[in-house]
């Protein structure tokens, strides 16, 4: 039986060290650092997940009256891409050192939100591909960037980074031709 969902108890701005790592991957196509927040919330079995602030109301227990405000604020947030919450559970304090694969993977979701017209679109894409299509993370290198679903894109970026982020990697052209150009 898996561990239950963990609500956030701590939140902080993405650290300078973490931002240096992900900026080295994504270039200048990420939101400003003060728009990326790390929390210790986690999904089932401690899994990490990333959401735009437009979904923040769903991880907070608020009375019904507050829900109207939450939806309204969230709706506006999804249009202007206000901020993102990367929820990493127990990796909260050591994300850059002990879980760089999680940092890079989840920040790619931030990149997808920032470089899409609607920040929420990657969330729906992720849910659809995991729940309906299946094997959401599996990919074969060589296809066009936009033919990959959001989890495959995040996996490509993660795999490139954690295999040594080499400029001779067969995945490198996705980094230069798509990721660093904001081609979501």
């Amino acid at each position, binding site marked *: 039986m898996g561990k239950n969902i963990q609500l956030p108890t701590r939140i902080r701005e993405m650290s300078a060290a973490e931002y240096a790592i992900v900026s080295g991957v994504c270039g200048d196509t990420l939101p400003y650092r003060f728009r990326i927040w790390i929390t210790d919330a986690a999904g*089932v079995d401690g899994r990490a997940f990333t959401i735009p602030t437009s979904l923040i109301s*769903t991880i907070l227990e608020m009375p019904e009256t507050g829900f*109207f405000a939450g*939806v309204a604020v969230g709706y506006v947030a999804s249009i202007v891409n206000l901020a993102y919450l990367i929820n990493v559970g127990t990796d909260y304090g050591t994300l850059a050192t002990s879980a760089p*694969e999680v940092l890079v993977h989840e920040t790619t979701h931030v990149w997808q939100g920032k470089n899409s017209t609607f920040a929420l679109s990657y969330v729906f894409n992720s849910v659809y591909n995991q729940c309906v299509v299946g094997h959401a993370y599996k990919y074969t290198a060589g296809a066009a960037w936009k033919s990959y679903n959001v989890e495959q894109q995040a996996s490509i970026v993660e795999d490139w980074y954690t295999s040594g982020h080499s400029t001779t990697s067969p995945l490198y052209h996705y980094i230069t031709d798509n990721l660093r150009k904001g081609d979501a």
Partner: protein
Amino acid sequence: MRVRLVVSKAAWVILSIVLAATIACDPSIRVEGTVHDRQGTPLEGVTVILQSEERGPHNTVTAKDGSFGIGIVGAEPRQTKLLFQKDGYKSLEMPLGNEYASKMNVTLEPEVR
């Protein structure tokens, strides 16, 4: 007001479902451990490769005390294995089984030339 309440509840349900499904996402494998030789001396500079059937390889190198940590997001442990490689030692391959989080104590045997 009643209509707005119904709509708000519907929106709440939809958002909750979306989030619940999203929360179920991004499972990650994490393996930590140490590598040493037959005498128990920690081995520095061992290349540790995490190889998934569905993804590209991830790799790291053991530290001075032989410790390592490596992970991958979104891969199935049953389809993932670890490879340990160092000059002068036999390469070692270890499947992960069903575990998403593992601790390993690995012994490398010297290579016979």
